[in-house]
């Protein structure tokens, strides 16, 4: 294979990596906000599922993908509110609340979808303005003259759907909010030591609710991405475990925004590789089976958790409901 062809292969792989990472990035950042504030969110999967469903139905009924995104965010916020109510106000077990939401989403989407469209939980196929289309960024022709970068710009940076760009903008935004604003400082503090935040006269409950709600918004966009950008409609259980992979990526990223970007891109890359090159032959000696590449994200997460590569320390007060006085 000559140089130009292999460069093109590389670009295609990167292009696919970007597409596959987007839902993971958004879900991972959602988890980041929530867990940084001390609320474990295992319900990412469920929130993505319900928002994928709502975005598909609303986009189909109104023929507007953007309205679909709004509906997705609204639905995801309702789920977030339930999670907040159970785990913040009533100090319930956060894991159980999250699992319950996952089951609720899994059942609700199919039952309601079947009642509305009689297609076994599937929504009708979206067409035209009901789904997002690729945007071609300007300056492609200008950059085309620059040898390596020109192709990179045209193949990898340009030609994605709107939510892709939103997702990549959310990463620095998250970093800025968490590490450069007063709200972010307090949010991180409430995940480490809520008692001291409370002593300073700041409402723990309000901070945690806002973190959970931000997570809801991000999950909503992630779900809408699946149903209106990657696919053209909702299918039963279409999130297929992406919420859990996002959680794994969050641990892998040690609860940091830019690490999260790196982790999700890595997981996206692994999926792209398994899609493009199912069986990788190593020096004609043996094949790496595709299952290994697919399992690698989980293997890596376990390795990180076990403390072999650095140490992943979760927020100290994570998972514990805050009780003002004992």
């Amino acid at each position, binding site marked *: 294979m000559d140089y130009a062809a292999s460069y093109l292969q590389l670009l*295609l792989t990167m292009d*696919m990596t970007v*597409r*596959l990472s987007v839902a993971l990035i958004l879900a991972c950042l959602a988890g980041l906000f929530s867990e940084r504030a001390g609320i474990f969110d295992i319900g990412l999967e469920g929130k993505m599922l319900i928002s994928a469903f709502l975005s598909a139905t609303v986009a189909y009924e109104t023929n507007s993908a953007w309205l679909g995104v709004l509906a997705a965010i609204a639905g995801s916020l309702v789920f977030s509110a339930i999670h907040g109510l159970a785990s913040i106000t009533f100090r319930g077990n956060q894991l159980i609340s999250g699992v319950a939401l996952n089951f609720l989403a899994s*059942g609700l989407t*199919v039952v309601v979808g*079947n009642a509305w469209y*009689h*297609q*076994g*939980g*599937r929504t009708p*196929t979206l067409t035209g303005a009901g789904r997002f289309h690729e945007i071609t960024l300007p300056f492609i022709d200008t950059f085309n003259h620059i040898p390596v970068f020109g192709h990179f710009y045209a193949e990898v940076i340009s030609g994605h759907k709107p939510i892709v760009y939103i997702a990549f903008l959310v990463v620095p935004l998250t970093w800025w909010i968490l590490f450069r604003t007063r709200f972010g400082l307090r949010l991180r503090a409430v995940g480490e030591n809520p008692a001291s935040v409370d002593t300073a006269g700041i409402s723990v409950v309000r901070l945690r609710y806002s973190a959970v709600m931000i997570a809801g918004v991000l999950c909503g966009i992630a779900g809408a991405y*699946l149903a209106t950008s*990657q*696919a*053209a*409609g909702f*299918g*039963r*259980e*279409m999130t*297929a*475990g992406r919420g859990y992979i996002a959680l794994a990526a969050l641990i892998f990223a040690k609860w940091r925004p830019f690490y999260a970007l790196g982790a999700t891109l890595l997981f996206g890359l692994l*999926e*792209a590789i398994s*899609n*493009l090159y*199912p069986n990788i032959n190593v020096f004609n000696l043996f094949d790496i089976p*595709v*299952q290994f590449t*697919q399992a690698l994200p989980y293997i890596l997460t376990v390795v990180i958790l076990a403390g072999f590569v650095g140490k992943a320390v979760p927020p100290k007060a994570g998972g514990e409901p805050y009780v003002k006085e004992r």
Partner: protein
Amino acid sequence: MSFMKVILGSASAVAFTAVAAFADPAIVYDLGGKFDKSFNEAASHGAARWKKETGKNFREIELSSAAQREQALRRLAEKGNNPIVMTGFAFASSLEKVAKDFPKTKFVIIDMVVNQPNVRSVVFKEQEGSYLMGVAAAKASKSGTVGFIGGMDIPLIRKFACGYVQGVKATAPNDKVIQNMTGTTPSAWNDPVKGSELTKAQIAQGADVVYAAAGGTGVGVLQTAADEGIYSIGVDSNQNYLHPGSVLTSMMKRVDVAVYNAFKDGPTLKTGFNVLGLANGGIDYALDKNNAKIFTPEIKAAVDAAKAGIISGKIKVHDYMSDNSCPVK
């Protein structure tokens, strides 16, 4: 009070047996769901046809998790439904147990063999139909590269892939076939997003005809093929209508015929092996107004020739499941 309960209880028991005496047939759909636009939906068409023709009723159950399989079979058998049809290989282990406990009930399992005296095992020669799809794909492809996307990586799906590759190679020996499996867990049947990405990956490698044997995941494959302007091939049901002008044809596994026959035979149905293939109309390809324009006479001639060859025995299509290997790659 307790006396009342006894009376009510026995009354309901009588009512229950009265209902059970009707011995309606029943069908249990596998996890893809009744409306998967593919395998299970084909089964439901067969049941619906029987109902329309006879005017009688049947019971149906859709599963929401794998754990419900045995429970669903048991419940239908207890209610006196006979025969009970189930769609999918995954029922095999549950049926082994349940069939022994209800020796008087007849069971029909599609896509799998269960050796019990009261079970009819319906299997299809998918390799024959897939061979035809390979011929059509090779004829329609301009790039010389065609793709296959399977659902869950199981021998049955490899059987599809193997037949397809044989058809392609027999028609155009130098053509390349790219094969992908969606995954190794049952969620591989329900992941249109991944199906779409796999299609894009295959297109990037030059494929211009993609054959999807992947249940609900195939919806994403067909969608992306239509978006990107290449041909796709549907499976199980006639999927030509999903994207007219893009779905080249569909490999039809007449699951509906299997279900219809089972319902029609009723409680006295013949058990044992039941193999459906091209020769007895259990396997076929779809040609209708949606693909009439793209399914050119040249393709049709080649496919029909291959079909005749298989029926007459001149063309032997290797069955992957007979030795778990495929002679061509």
